C-alpha cells in the first residue's frame, strides 16, 4: 500500500488509544467500569506478560497477540497501542513546530550496544532478582506514572476550580477533592523519566523507543522476521531523501534503499511523504539478504549479563530486610512491616509482580494507596503502600484488586476481602486520650467495621479501647481516626503474608421491640 491512508489511520487510531489511556489514569470519579479498563490493558505487553507468568492462562495472553502482531506487521504496537509511544509522537509533533525536521531526523546508526544491554539487563535483573528495572523502564508504567503524578493533579485542580465556581452558583454537580499525599521523593523518578522521554522525543523522535525501551528492543528483534514491512520501490525512487527526513526512528537509509525494521515503528510517515510513491507497506520480498554474525556484539551482551549479576547482588543488599516484630513501644508507633494493598497475598508475591504503574493508586476512591518511599525498601520504590495517616481502606471496596494489570493485586470478591487480614491492630494505651486526658474518645472503635476495636469500662464513667486481632482486617480506619499527635495511639502493623481474619460473631440483642414509650 502506498497511499497516505495508512498514516491517517495510524494517527486516528492512536489518538483514540491515547485518550482512553489518559482517561483511565485521571478517572478520579470512577466513571469507567473496571472491566473496560481491563479490555484496554489486555494488550499492554509487560503487564500482560507478568500476569501470564503468574496465571498461565490465555486470558492473560495479550502479549502473545502483540508478538504475533509484530511477527505479522512489525512494530505496529509501538505506534498504535503503546500509550508512551503515542505520547512521544505528540511531543515529537510539538518539537517539529519548534525545530525544523531535517535538523532532527535523518538516518542514524542504531545504538546497538545500549539497547541490547538494557534489554539484557532488564531481563537478567527480572529473572535473577526482581522486577525493578522493568518497573523503571516499562513504557506502560512510565506512562501511567506520568499521568497519575503530573496530569491527574492538574485535572483535580481544574475540577476544584470549577466545583468552586459551580458551588458559588449553588450547583454541586462537581465536588471539591482534597489532594492527599504529595511526596516530592516519590515524584522524583517519574519526573526524571518524563523529562527524559519528553526531551528525547521533542528533539529526536522515537529515540527513547529505539535506545532505552526494552519492549521496543524486544519487538524490534521479533520484527526482523516480520511479514509486512516498509519497502522501497527502487525503480521509482529518486533518492530525494524526504522519507529519511520525516522518519521519527531515523531508520531509513535511503541511499542504500534500506529500512532498519528493528527500529521502524510503522508510523507510515515516509509513505505519505514520498512524492514518487516509491515507499510502500507490504509483504516482504523473499530475496534473502546476506547476514553476518557480529561476534563482538554477542560477547558484549554476555558480559553485560554477568556484570548485572554483581549489580543485582548489590541492590539486593540494599533491600529492606524483613523485620521481626519487636517489643511494643509505648510512645512511638513501631510498625515492623508496611501494609500491602488487598489482593497482594503477600509482600513477596506483590513486590515481585508490581510494576508501579499506579493505576490502583489513581483508582483508589479513598486515596489510601500511596507510592511507597522506603517502606518496601529501595527496590519497591513507587509501588503502592497503604498509608493510614493519609486515609484508610474502605470496607466495601475492592477496586484496586480489579484494575491491576499484572495480577500483583489479585481480584478479591468483596466478601473475601472483608475477611482478608492485611495487618493487625496494635493499641498503645499510654498514647490514648482516655488514659492521658481522662476524657471520652473512642474514635478508633467507632471507625472499626468489624469491632476488632471495642470499648471496655475504664475509670468512672469512661470506656477505653480494647482490641481483638483475630477479627481485625487491618483496614486502618482506627489508625486514621485516632486524633493523637504526633504518634497515634492505635495503628496497624502489616502482615508480610496476608492472613484470614475470623468472621466477627454477633448475637441477637436482648432488647425487644417496645410496646410503650419508656418516657
Amino acid at each position, binding site marked *: 500500500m502506498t497511499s497516505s491512508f495508512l498514516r491517517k489511520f495510524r494517527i486516528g487510531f492512536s489518538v483514540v488509544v491515547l485518550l482512553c489511556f489518559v482517561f483511565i489514569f485521571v478517572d478520579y470519579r*470512577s466513571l469507567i467500569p473496571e472491566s473496560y479498563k481491563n479490555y484496554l490493558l489486555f494488550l499492554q505487553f509487560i503487564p500482560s506478560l507478568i500476569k501470564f507468568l503468574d496465571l498461565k492462562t490465555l486470558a492473560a495472553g495479550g502479549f502473545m497477540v502483540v508478538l504475533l502482531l509484530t511477527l505479522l506487521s512489525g512494530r505496529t504496537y509501538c505506534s498504535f497501542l503503546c500509550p508512551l509511544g503515542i505520547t512521544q509522537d505528540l511531543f515529537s509533533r510539538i518539537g517539529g513546530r519548534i525545530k525544523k525536521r531535517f535538523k532532527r531526523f535523518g538516518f542514524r546508526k542504531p545504538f546497538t550496544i545500549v539497547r541490547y544491554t538494557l534489554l539484557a539487563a532488564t531481563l537478567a535483573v527480572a529473572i535473577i532478582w526482581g522486577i525493578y528495572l522493568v518497573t523503571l523502564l516499562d513504557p506502560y508504567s512510565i506512562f501511567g506514572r506520568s499521568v497519575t503524578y503530573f496530569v491527574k493533579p492538574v485535572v483535580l485542580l481544574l475540577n*476544584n476550580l470549577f466545583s*468552586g465556581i459551580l*458551588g458559588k452558583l*449553588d450547583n*454541586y454537580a462537581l*465536588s*471539591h*477533592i*482534597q489532594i492527599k499525599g504529595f511526596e516530592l521523593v516519590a515524584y522524583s523518578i517519574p519526573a526524571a523519566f518524563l523529562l527524559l522521554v519528553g526531551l528525547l522525543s521533542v528533539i529526536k523522535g522515537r529515540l527513547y523507543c529505539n535506545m532505552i525501551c526494552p519492549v521496543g528492543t524486544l519487538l524490534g528483534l521479533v520484527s526482523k522476521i516480520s511479514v509486512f514491512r516498509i519497502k522501497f520501490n527502487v525503480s521509482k525512487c529518486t533518492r530525494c531523501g524526504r522519507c529519511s527526513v520525516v522518519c521519527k526512528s531515523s531508520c531509513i537509509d535511503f541511499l542504500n534503499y534500506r529500512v532498519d525494521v528493528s527500529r521502524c515503528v510503522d508510523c507510515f510517515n515516509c509513505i505519505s511523504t514520498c512524492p514518487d510513491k516509491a515507499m510502500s507497506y507490504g509483504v516482504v520480498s523473499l530475496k534473502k539478504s546476506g547476514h553476518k554474525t557480529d561476534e563482538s556484539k554477542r560477547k558484549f551482551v554476555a558480559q553485560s549479563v554477568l556484570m548485572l549479576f554483581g549489580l543485582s547482588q548489590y541492590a539486593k543488599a540494599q533491600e529492606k530486610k524483613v523485620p521481626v516484630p519487636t517489643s511494643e513501644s509505648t510512645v512511638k508507633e513501631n510498625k515492623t512491616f508496611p501494609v500491602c494493598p488487598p489482593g497482594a497475598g503477600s509482600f513477596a508475591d506483590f513486590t515481585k509482580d508490581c510494576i508501579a504503574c499506579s493505576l490502583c493508586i489513581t483508582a483508589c*476512591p*479513598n486515596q489510601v494507596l500511596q507510592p511507597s518511599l522506603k517502606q518496601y525498601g529501595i527496590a519497591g520504590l513507587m509501588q503502592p503502600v497503604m498509608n493510614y495517616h493519609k486515609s484508610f481502606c*474502605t*470496607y*466495601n*471496596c475492592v477496586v484496586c484488586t480489579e484494575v491491576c494489570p499484572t495480577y500483583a493485586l489479585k481480584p478479591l470478591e468483596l466478601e473475601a476481602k472483608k475477611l482478608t487480614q492485611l495487618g493487625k491492630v496494635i493499641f498503645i494505651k499510654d498514647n490514648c*486520650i482516655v488514659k492521658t*486526658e481522662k*476524657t*471520652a*474518645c*473512642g*474514635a478508633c*472503635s*467507632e*471507625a*472499626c*467495621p*468489624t*469491632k476488632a476495636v*471495642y*470499648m471496655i469500662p475504664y475509670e468512672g*464513667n469512661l*470506656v477505653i479501647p480494647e482490641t481483638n486481632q483475630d477479627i481485625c482486617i487491618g483496614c486502618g480506619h482506627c489508625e486514621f*481516626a485516632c*486524633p*493523637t499527635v504526633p504518634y497515634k495511639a492505635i495503628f496497624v502493623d502489616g502482615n508480610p503474608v496476608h492472613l484470614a481474619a475470623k468472621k*466477627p460473631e*454477633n*448475637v*441477637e*440483642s436482648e*432488647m*425487644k*421491640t*417496645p410496646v410503650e*414509650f*419508656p*418516657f
Partner: protein
Amino acid sequence: MRRRDFFKSSVGAGIAAGAALSMGGYQKLWASSPVPPGYDMVAVMGGTPEAMFDLAIQEMGGIGAFVKKGQKVLVKPNIGWDVIPELAANTNPGLVKRIIEHCFKAGAKEVYVFDHTCDNWVNTYKNSGIEKAAKAAGAKVVPAASENYYQLIEIPGGVKLKSAKVHEVLLETDVFINVPILKDHNSTRMTACLKNNMGLVWDRGYWHSNNLHQCIADYALYEKKPALNVIDCYNVMVKHGPQGVSKEDVVQMKSLILTTDWVAGDAAAAKMLNIEPSRIDYIPIAHKMGLGNMNLDSLNIKRLKM
C-alpha cells in the same frame, strides 16, 4: 400559653438558670412562627417512618410552623457509614425523603442535604440510599468531604470548643432541620440529636481529643440551632454502634420523636435505649449550660400510637 406554663414549671423545678437561657433561645425561634406549636415533643409509635412523621408534624402544627415560603432549608440526616439502610447506621432514607417533601409543600425555595461522612462519602451517600431518596424529593445533595466547604465560626461561651469550621450550607440556609437516627455509641453510649452535629463540622478529631462530651455540648451553643429535631427510631442499633456489624445489632422500635428541644430529644432517645440520660455525660452538661431540658417530666409531650 402552655409554653409559659412550661417555663414557669421549669423554673419551679429548680433549674432557673438553664431555663432562662433556653427561653431566650426559644422566643427567638418562635417569634416568627405563625402558629406556635402546642407541644415540646411529639413521640409516635407503630407506623412507617413516613406515616409517623406525617402524624407527628401535624401534631406540631404542620411544617409551615417551621418552614416558610421562599426559605432555604437544610435537612441534616446522619449519613455516617457506608452501610445499607437495613442496618440502621444512617437515617432512614424514606424519612428523609418525606421531610423534604413537606418542606417543599410549605414553599421552601431549596432543600439541601449533606453529612460529613466517616466512610468514603461517594459510597456512603449512595449505599445509605439517602442520596437517591433526597434527589427524588427534589433536594440538593451536597458534598462535604473537603475542608474547602467549611467556614470558621466562633462559639462564644464554649468551654472547650470555642470555634469550629462548619459547612457553608449550614450558614447559607434559613432553616436547619436535624434528622438524626438513634443509635448505640461505643464511646458516648448514645448518638442522636447533639452528636449528629459532628457531621456539620470539619475537624472532629479536635472534639475527640479535647473532652468529647464537653465539645458536643459546647457546639450546641452555636447560634444556628435546629428549628426541629426529628429522631428516627424506626430501626435502632442497640449495640456495636455507631457503625454496627450485622443485623443482630438492630431492633425494630417503629418510633419517631419530634422535638424542638434537642437536649430533651436526646434524653428521650437515651430512654429508648434503656439508658439513664444522666449517664450520657453530654446530656447533663448541655442541660446545665441551658441548652435544653433533660427533665422529660416537666415537658409537654404528646405520645401517639398508630
